[in-house]
């Protein structure tokens, strides 16, 4: 297989998992990497389980299939743990990040005995604190970058500001909140990452 990082996102329609995957492709591109960001399309509707993917590599990416043995899985909606086999194919030396207010120990039973690294992020809390609403995708994007190490915090924050300024050109009032959400998530994860490093 191609050397590189493969990421699978699980979310529900409307939560922004697809947008997060596309933004991750965007920021990774700026580090000079070859990137792919794509959702798995079907009869989409609000609340239905959706999957999105990223490939990030130093080499040209030629494979156009879905990802079956990811290095990293990001679960944007905790309730999916009951209905979707989120750790399917996930590499044993890989990681999973779950949006939940619970501690890692409290959700392990739902992970089919997964032996790799497990991280939890309370993206709802971070989002409500910084944006006043539950938009979990910005915190989960920050978590994916922090855990995967695609780029360092400073460059990520810098690039995301540019991305948000472009994306939210007509709603500039949400930029600062989103930026705060990214920083808070990075900081919240820093301790866990030190422990597992």
């Amino acid at each position, binding site marked *: 297989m191609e050397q590189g990082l493969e990421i699978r996102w699980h979310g529900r329609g409307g939560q922004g998992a697809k947008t997060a995957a596309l933004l991750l492709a965007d920021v990774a591109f700026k580090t000079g990497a070859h990137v792919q960001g794509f959702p798995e399309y079907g009869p989409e509707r609000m609340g239905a389980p959706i999957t999105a993917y990223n490939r990030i590599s130093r080499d040209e990416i*030629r494979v156009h299939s*879905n990802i079956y043995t990811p290095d990293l899985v990001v679960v944007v909606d905790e309730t999916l743990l009951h209905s979707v086999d989120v750790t399917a194919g996930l590499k044993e030396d890989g990681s999973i990040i779950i949006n939940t207010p619970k501690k890692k120990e409290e959700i392990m039973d739902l992970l089919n005995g997964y032996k790799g690294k497990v991280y939890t992020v309370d993206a709802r809390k971070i989002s409500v604190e910084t944006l006043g609403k539950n938009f979990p995708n910005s915190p989960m994007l920050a978590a994916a970058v922090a855990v995967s190490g695609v780029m360092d915090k400073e460059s990520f924050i810098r690039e995301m500001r540019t991305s948000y300024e472009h994306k939210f050109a007509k709603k500039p009032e949400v930029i600062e909140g989103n930026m705060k959400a990214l920083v808070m998530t990075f900081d919240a994860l820093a301790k866990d990452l030190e422990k597992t490093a």
Partner: protein
Amino acid sequence: MPKKDRLSGNEAVAYAIRQVNPDVMPAFPITPSTEIPQLVSTYIANGQMDTEFIPVESEHSSMSATIGAEAAGARSLTATSSAGLALMWEELLLASSNRMPCVLTLVNRTLSGPININCDHSDGMGARDTGWIQIYAENNQEAYDNFIQAYPIAENKNVHLPIMVCQDGFITSHAVQNIELLDDDTVKDFVGTYEPEEYLLNIGKPVSVGPYSISAYAMEAKKNQEIAMENSKEVILKVARNFERISGRKYGLFEEYRTEDADYIMLIMGSAAGTAKQACDDLREKGLKAGILKLRVFRPFPAKELAEALSGCKCVAIMDRCESYNGNGGPLSMEVCAALFKYRVNTEAVSYIYGLAGRDFTVQHVYDIFEEIDAAVQNGTQVEQYKYIGLRE
């Protein structure tokens, strides 16, 4: 200076359309091609191009208006997918028989039913005998590059035929990936200004378009159309050579990947060719002499060239992303087998159907196919012909 960027396949084609800035684009939205007219109309609204955009009430109308505009002397195009292409059927034939060098950017999606929005080639393949040139892309870069080459091919005086520039729905149309974009000026210089020889708005030289033709003349018109299709092969290659000069990227009728000493070749089109190349590299590392032949130009069909390219291998797996419902295999497989027979090339050929209605096609599928044909050749057994890949057990 070329610019490195990351775009989806639809964004890449819309970007190329902006650079070419054709005269008229009638369009009607259909998934997964909708973004193309949507992005183009945004470019127009922002004053970044001045194409006349006509929102129409159906694909029957979008193709009719494209033909009408082209007949008037305007460089024209439209975009569609799946059922949209099916609704254009009658007009597709009018575009080609009236020798209209218009462009259709097709984002391949399966035809109903069951109704499904995902990729296969049944729309494009269904239109294979409508007299359009058809070029297929592996990724966003090729979709972009092929669009830029489209008008210079179609408008060539020895061709004068419409051209379909195809890419895989969602798989490339909605996947963001790295891409290298040419300067606007480079693209404009390459494509040039359209100078139609005969057109309706030329009051100095009146012409009729689409008149009735009696049996005493109609057959000659059809033969001339066929000659134009044959001529297009050389023009496609010439335009590719010129394109290489401005882009550094090489194109032909097909791409041969590690085929020079290959025992086994997979013949495949579109995005799955990229997956197949990766799997081919993996198999080569294990010592299997695998190669990939990616067909880029399906119309005109390069029968002789393909037969020659396949003459040195022991077995070819012919991959169709389309069912033909004839009990005998997919369209690509039948045309390739006919070519092998016609040019007396005695290579074993196995027909596979894959990826219908968005069924995922993986590197593992490619490994399995090569292993299967290798085992058959080694053991002197027959592989089951006309086999489906990736079916649910």
